[in-house]
C-alpha cells in the first residue's frame, strides 16, 4: 500500500498534474457558479480536453473540476442565494443571511475551510477504505456484479426526491434501453439500428452526456430565462467584509466539521446518494442536536448551519469515488460521467484497477488532497476575481457552451452526424426536463446497462441458464435484498402517505 501511495504521490505532483488540478479547480469554480450548470456539465465539457492526456492526468483534471464546481456553487449560494449546484442548496440557508448581514467574506471563508476540512478528512477515509474494499471485491463473481449494478440503479431511484421515485425508475430503464442500441457484443447482431451505419457502434456516451446535460442546460436557460443576478452579485462582492474568523468561531466549527465529514463520506459512498443528500442530512443533524437557543439561529446566519452542509457535500464527493474506484460502479451522475471518460481512455474502473493500474488509482486519491489545498489557498483569495467572469453576458456565454459541447463531441469522432444527433437528444432532454424527469438516472442506466447485461449473460452461462446464482452466494443474496429494500422503502412511504391523505379527505358519515 505504501508503495502505491508513493507511486500515486509521484504521479500527482508531476508539474502537468499539478497544473491540471489548479486548472480543474478554477474551471469548476467558474462553471459551478453559473446557475443552472452543474458539476456533470462542467466535467462533460472537460472530457474532450482530457483525451490528449494520460488517464491519471485526465481523471485528476475531472476530480479538480468536481470539487471546484461544488465550491463555486457554494459561492453563488452565499452571495446571491442562487445555488449553482443542487449540493449547495443547504449552504444558502445560513450562508445568504450571513452575506446579508455584511459578513459575506466570513461566510465564504467558513465555506472554504469547511470544504477543505471535509474533503481532506474524507480523502483520508478513502485512502483506507478504497484499498480494503478493492481487495474484498476481487473475489466478486459475475452474479455479484450483476447484483451490485441492480443495487446501484435501484438506489439512485430510491434516493430520488419525493414523488420522483417512479420517474427515476423510468429514466433508469430508458437509459438501459439506450444502451441496447448498436451491436450486441456477445452475439454480434445489430439491435435497434434501423439500418443506420451511424448506430452500429451504439450511442456514444460522450454525445449523450453532452446533449442531455451541457446542451440542454444551456438551452433551458434561454427557454426559461432567470432573473439577471449580475448586479446583485457585484453588489455583494463589493461589500465582502473581513474573511478572518475569531477563535470562538473556529471552536464552534471544529466539532461540526468532524461530524459532518463522517456523515458526508458515508452518504457519498452509498450509490445514489450524493452531495445533495449529504448536505441536507448534515444540516438536519446539526439543527437537531443544537440547543434550543442555538436552534433559533439556524436560517439566520448560523455558523454551524453553514459549516455542516459545506463539509458534508465535499466529503460526499470524495466518498462517491469509493464505489467507482473499487467496484467500477458509479454512485452518482457525476461519477457516471467520469467512469464513461475512463472507459473511453481504455481504463476499466473496478477492483482490477487497484492491482493493474495503481498509479491511476492512487494518483486520483492523492490529487484530492492537492485539489482541496488549491481550493483553499488559491481559489478563496481569488473568488472576487473569478466572480468577475460571471459578468460575461448570457448572450455570449450560452453560444460558447453550445460550441464547446458540439465541438467536444465532433473532435472525438469527426462525424457530423453526431452534431445532428446531439440536437435531437438535447431536444428530447429538454422535453423530459420540462416534464420533470431527472436526467442523472438515465446516464447511470446507460453506463451500467451494458455492464449489467454482460454480467447477467456470464452468470447465466456459468450456472447453466439457471437463475439460482441470485441466491446461491450469500453476498449476492444480501446485495439483492438491500436492492429490494431500497426500492420498496419509498414505494411503501408513498403508499402510506396516499392512504393517510385519502383517509383525511373522505368525509365521515356524521358530516353528511
Amino acid at each position, binding site marked *: 500500500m505504501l508503495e502505491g501511495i508513493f507511486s500515486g504521490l509521484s504521479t500527482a505532483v508531476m508539474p502537468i498534474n499539478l497544473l491540471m488540478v489548479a486548472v480543474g479547480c478554477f474551471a469548476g469554480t467558474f462553471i459551478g457558479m453559473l446557475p443552472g450548470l452543474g458539476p456533470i456539465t462542467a466535467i462533460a465539457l472537460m472530457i474532450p480536453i482530457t483525451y*490528449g492526456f494520460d488517464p491519471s492526468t485526465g481523471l485528476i483534471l475531472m476530480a479538480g473540476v468536481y470539487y471546484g464546481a461544488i465550491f463555486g456553487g457554494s459561492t453563488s449560494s452565499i452571495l446571491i442565494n442562487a445555488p449553482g449546484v443542487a449540493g449547495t442548496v443547504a449552504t444558502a440557508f445560513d450562508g445568504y443571511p450571513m452575506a446579508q448581514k455584511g459578513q459575506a467574506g466570513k461566510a465564504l471563508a467558513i465555506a472554504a475551510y469547511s470544504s477543505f476540512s471535509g474533503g481532506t478528512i474524507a480523502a483520508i477515509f478513502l485512502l483506507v477504505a478504497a484499498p480494503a474494499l478493492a481487495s474484498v471485491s476481487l473475489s466478486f463473481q459475475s452474479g455479484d456484479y450483476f447484483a451490485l449494478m441492480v443495487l446501484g440503479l435501484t438506489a439512485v431511484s430510491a434516493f430520488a426526491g419525493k*414523488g420522483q421515485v*417512479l*420517474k427515476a*425508475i*423510468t429514466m433508469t*430503464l*430508458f437509459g*438501459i*434501453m439506450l444502451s*441496447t442500441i448498436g451491436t*450486441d457484443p*456477445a*452475439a*454480434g*447482431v*445489430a*439491435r*435497434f439500428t434501423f439500418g443506420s451505419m451511424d448506430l452500429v457502434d451504439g450511442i456514444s456516451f460522450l454525445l449523450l452526456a453532452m446533449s442531455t446535460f451541457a446542451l440542454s442546460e444551456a*438551452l433551458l436557460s*434561454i*427557454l*426559461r*430565462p432567470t432573473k439577471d443576478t449580475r448586479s446583485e452579485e457585484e453588489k455583494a462582492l463589493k461589500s465582502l467584509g473581513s474573511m478572518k474568523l475569531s477563535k470562538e468561531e473556529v471552536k464552534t466549527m471544529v466539532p461540526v466539521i468532524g461530524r459532518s465529514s463522517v456523515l458526508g463520506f458515508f452518504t457519498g459512498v452509498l450509490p445514489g446518494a450524493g452531495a445533495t443528500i449529504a448536505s441536507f442530512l448534515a444540516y438536519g443533524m446539526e439543527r437537531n442536536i443544537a440547543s434550543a437557543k442555538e436552534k433559533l439561529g439556524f436560517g439566520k446566519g448560523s455558523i454551524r448551519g453553514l459549516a455542516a452542509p459545506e463539509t458534508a457535500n465535499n466529503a460526499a464527493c470524495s466518498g462517491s469515488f469509493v464505489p467507482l474506484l473499487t467496484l467500477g460502479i458509479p454512485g452518482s451522475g457525476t461519477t457516471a460521467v467520469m467512469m464513461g471518460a475512463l472507459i473511453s481512455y481504455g481504463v476499466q474502473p473496478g477492483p482490477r484497477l487497484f492491482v493493474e493500474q495503481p498509479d491511476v488509482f492512487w494518483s486520483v486519491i492523492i490529487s484530492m488532497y492537492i485539489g482541496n489545498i488549491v481550493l483553499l489557498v488559491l481559489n478563496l483569495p481569488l473568488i472576487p476575481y473569478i466572480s468577475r467572469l460571471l459578468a460575461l*453576458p*448570457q*448572450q*455570449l456565454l*450560452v*453560444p*460558447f457552451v*453550445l*460550441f464547446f459541447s*458540439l*465541438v467536444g463531441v*465532433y*473532435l472525438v469522432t469527426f462525424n*457530423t*452526424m453526431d*452534431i*445532428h444527433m*446531439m*440536437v435531437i437528444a*438535447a*431536444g428530447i432532454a*429538454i422535453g*423530459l426536463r*420540462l*416534464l*420533470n*424527469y431527472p436526467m442523472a438516472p438515465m446516464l447511470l442506466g446507460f453506463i451500467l446497462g451494458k455492464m449489467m*447485461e454482460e454480467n*447477467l*449473460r456470464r452468470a*447465466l*452461462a456459468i450456472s*447453466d*441458464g*439457471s437463475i439460482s446464482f441470485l441466491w446461491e452466494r450469500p453476498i449476492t443474496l444480501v446485495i439483492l435484498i438491500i436492492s429490494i429494500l431500497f426500492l420498496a422503502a419509498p414505494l411503501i412511504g408513498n403508499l402510506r402517505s*396516499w392512504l393517510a391523505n385519502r383517509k383525511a379527505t373522505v368525509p365521515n358519515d356524521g358530516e353528511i
Partner: protein
Amino acid sequence: MSINRDKFGALLFLCLALIYGFYVGDIPLLFGDEDAPFNARTLPNALAWLLGVVSFVQLILPTNREAGSLEHAFRGLKWKRVVILAALMVFYGLTIRQLGFPISTSLFLMGGFYTLGERRPLVLILTSVGVTLAFWGLLYAMGIYLTPGDFFYYLGWMSNDA
C-alpha cells in the same frame, strides 16, 4: 381539458415501451440462440415489459396535483430563440466540412450571439472570429488539424498536394 404533466409523461413512456417491445422482434438471432437462456432479445424484452409496467402504474396511480397541468409546464417558454439556436447547430453540422472549421464556427457563434440579443457589430465579429481562431490554433498546437474546408479545395485555393 388539460392533462396532468406526470400522466402525460407516463403515457409517452408507455408508448415508447410498446414501440420498443414491437421492434425487439426485429433483432436477428443466431442459429440455436432461440432456446438459449440469454440471447440478444432477452434484456430488451425484459426492459420493454418493465417500462410498460412502471409507466402503466404511473398512469393508474392517483394524480399528483403538485405536478400541475401539461399546459402549465410549457407556458411562458421562449421557444423562438431555442428553435433558432437548434437550427444554427444543424447548420453548423452541415457546414463544418464544406466551409471548414474557422468559417462555420465563426458563423455559428455570430448567429448565436445575434439570436440572444448582441447587436454590436464589433463585439459580434471580434468575439466570434477571435475565439474561433484561438481555438483553432490551440487544436493545431495539440496536434489536431482541422481542414479549412472542402469549399476551398473546390475553388482551387487549397490543394491536397504535399
